[in-house]
């Protein structure tokens, strides 16, 4: 009977240098999942190389290998697996790295609430159940990575590369600073149709009127954090891929951007044109996949934004418009 369950039940791998955390997670999750534990990053990656897992939960602060490093390598070994960062405290750099390099699904704060953790793990498991599709060129590069690793990749974890024709979608720049906006415009304008907005209202209006695949936005628009807008967009228009640029983010904001906005990248200023172009190119291919295979968005499901932030948008009349947006 136990062997039956191991086949059917999703597998969750927990990494922490504190064994009591692992024991607690196991006690919490083992009724629903097969729970594997590792005391450090190396042994966790070893497990991942030997067998497929659905969800990886990693601590950030660990000796020898940080959580971000574990997540980054785990993404290469098993891109299919959903990654969660469980942390008591992390500096901003670690969080940004975990977004951009670890492409994590959620941040979970220690101490966690059992019900919430269960819910997040459940979401993650369901997202992991969606077969990951990558555009052809991305898949190729992933295969190259694997060859470089020299380690065998579990067959069922390999993402399926699909040929994706470019959708011809445009880029929307949202920044109240005209100079920075213009710099980005020159950087991106050659490769994609670029629309520019300096307020939420303009942004929503442009989304209504144009075919937009990637939203590149400054973290702060005037005095408003873009988190609420991104949360609402993610909730109702999940195919839109968001890149956030910031000069001074704090850890809390970054966590919100992931947990409620599922942003694709968080870039820090000063931003080089090449980095901007490369990031937008990758984001655009991701959009192409998402728009042609809508079920893929489940892998990027975000938690609903907190009520007060939604209320702000509602007051400005933006929420209704976002709901009715039809992304072409």
């Amino acid at each position, binding site marked *: 009977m136990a062997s039956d369950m191991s086949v059917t039940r999703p597998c969750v791998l927990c990494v922490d240098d504190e064994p009591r955390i692992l024991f*607690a997670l196991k*006690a919490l999750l083992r009724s629903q999942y097969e729970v594997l534990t590792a005391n450090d990053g190396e042994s966790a990656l070893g497990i991942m190389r030997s067998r497929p897992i659905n969800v990886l939960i990693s601590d950030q602060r660990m000796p020898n290998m940080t959580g971000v490093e574990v997540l980054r390598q785990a993404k290469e070994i098993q891109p299919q697996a959903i990654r969660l960062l469980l942390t008591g405290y992390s500096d901003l750099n670690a969080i940004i790295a975990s977004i951009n390099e670890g492409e994590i699904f959620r941040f979970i704060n*220690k101490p966690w609430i059992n019900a919430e953790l269960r819910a997040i793990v459940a979401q993650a498991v369901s997202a992991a159940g969606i077969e990951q599709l990558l555009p052809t060129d991305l898949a190729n590069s992933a295969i190259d990575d694997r060859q470089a690793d020299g380690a065998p990749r579990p067959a069922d974890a390999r993402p399926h590369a699909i040929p994706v024709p470019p959708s011809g979608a445009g880029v929307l720049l949202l920044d109240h600073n005209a100079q920075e906006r213009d710099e980005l415009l020159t950087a991106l304008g050659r490769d994609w149709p670029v629309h520019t907005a300096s307020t939420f209202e303009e942004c929503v209006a442009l989304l209504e009127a144009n075919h937009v695949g990637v939203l590149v936005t400054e973290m702060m628009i005037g005095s408003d954090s873009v988190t609420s807008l991104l949360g609402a967009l993610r909730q109702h228009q999940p195919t839109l891929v968001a890149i956030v640029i910031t000069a001074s983010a704090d850890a809390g904001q970054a966590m919100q951007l992931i947990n409620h906005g599922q942003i694709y990248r968080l870039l820090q200023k000063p931003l080089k044109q090449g980095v901007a172009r490369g990031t937008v190119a990758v984001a655009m291919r991701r959009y192409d996949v998402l728009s042609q295979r809508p079920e893929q968005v489940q892998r990027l499901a975000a938690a609903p934004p907190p009520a007060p932030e939604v209320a702000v948008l509602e007051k400005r009349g933006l929420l209704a418009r976002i709901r009715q947006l039809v992304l072409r």
Partner: protein
Amino acid sequence: MTLRSAVVFAAIVLALGVLGFLLRATLSADAGVGVHQLRLNQLTTVASEQAALRAAVLASQVAPGIDSERLVGYAKQLSAARAGLAKGDGALTRMSPTIDDALRVYFAQSQTQIEKLNEYLRGLTQFTRAEQVFDQAGAAAVQRRAMTASAFTILQKQVRDYYAAPSGTAAKELTRSLARIDTDARELSADDRRKALQDLGAAAIAALTSHDALAPQSAALLAVPVAGSLQTLQSAYAAHYQILLARSERSRLALVIYTVALLFAFGLVGLRLRQGYGELDRVNAELQKANVGLEKEVELRTGDLRKALEDLQMQQAQLIQSEKMASLGQMVAGVAHEINTPLGYARSNLGVVRESLPMLADALRTYDETISVLRAPDTRNVAEREAALQAFDQQREAWNPEEGVTEFGALLDDSEHGFDQISELVMALKDFSRVDRSRTELFNVNEGVETALKICQNQFKGRLEVEKDFAEVDSILCAPSQLNQVFVNILNNAGQAIEGAGTITLRTRQRDDLVEVAIRDDGCGMDEATLQHVFEPFFTTKPIGQGTGLGMSIVFRIVEDHGGRIEIDSKPGKGTEFRILLPRNSGSAETAAAETEAA
């Protein structure tokens, strides 16, 4: 400056000297007025005495009765008056060459006059004697009746007239009378009478002869030009006095002119001075105005400066505060992680246990039901018992109480351990802050280093090896919370200096009266330039925004306030050792605590 005042002083002395000289010249003429009067009087006296003598001489010729005694008296008075001209207050000598010459001439003539006078006096004496002889002869003649008394009286009168006017009728009459006497005498027979008469005639002729002899003598005497030379002297003196007077007048004039000039000069100086003072007043007023303006300006500037200083102090205080907050924030973040981990599993475990309680309750209920079925006296049927037992087995299958309770124990053990961890950390925090203790107390640095290490532990965990080499050291009187901050700051720096794995060595030693705390890392070390600035406020090697650059300056201040010092050994690439040397009793610990608190 001194040269100028010397010149001014000399000019004033010169001006006053000239004034004094002129004044004296003017006054000298005035002072001579009395002497001048005396001299004039003397000259007048001499002239009058001279005139009196001359008159007496003339009278003596006419009136033979005048005796020579009187003439001598006059002569003596004249001599006395003359002596006054040569000697005494009113002397005219040594006044001017002209006067001296005149005086010499005059005195020579006076001498001549005296000689002539003496000759004249001798003649006069002879004459007087002849006269007496005449008179006696007349009386004898009358007695002898050679001649009548009346005839003799007439003869006498004729002789006297002749004296008064020797020429003219008197002489003719006298000649006739004498001829008659002579005739008469021849006529007389008596010898005695004739003789008497002849004697009388002879006496008369003798008297007339001596009288005639006087005339050239008196003429010689009167011919001495004393009056003229006196006149010359007088005029010489007068001329001299005129010159003196003129000179005095001239000096008076000069004095007046000089005085006027001086007054004018003083006036000019006064005017210049007045103008100078006016200018000075004006300048002074301007200066005063400028001064007031300046004071206002200075006040304004001072206000600005004070404000700037206050701002600066406030900013510094804010910076120190923000550094405190930053390191506090860093510390809190680290501690939060340290607390969140045990809190995480402790809470989760409790949740799991609680969630499992319904299953425990279910199990107990199943057990109860099973037992009650088995115990029933009228045991129903086998099927019912079987059913009960099957339900029991199912229950155990679903949730094994033994396993569950064992797990509960493990979970609760972990929770307990987590809470212990948390309380230990909280205790360390409390030790670190010392908020519940007095500010200054006896403190063992070994404990302080341990506490600080606990605070910093999360930074080092897994990455860094910490070696402790603690010796028995004296407790020191200090502000423990501040020293803890020192240890934490240096430990943090040491941890940041090491990239990747490394070792931090903590050593405490007793060094005579000093307690030494050494914190060594084998990190990147510091170069000479960094070492020189390491305690300077706002000096930082961290990227902008990651450090205020105040941490080490706060360390330095705290140690200095405790009367201690810090030694640093550092080599780039090799590592750094901080040695904190603290005296056993830093008298200023209390004030140090207060000051740092205030800052």
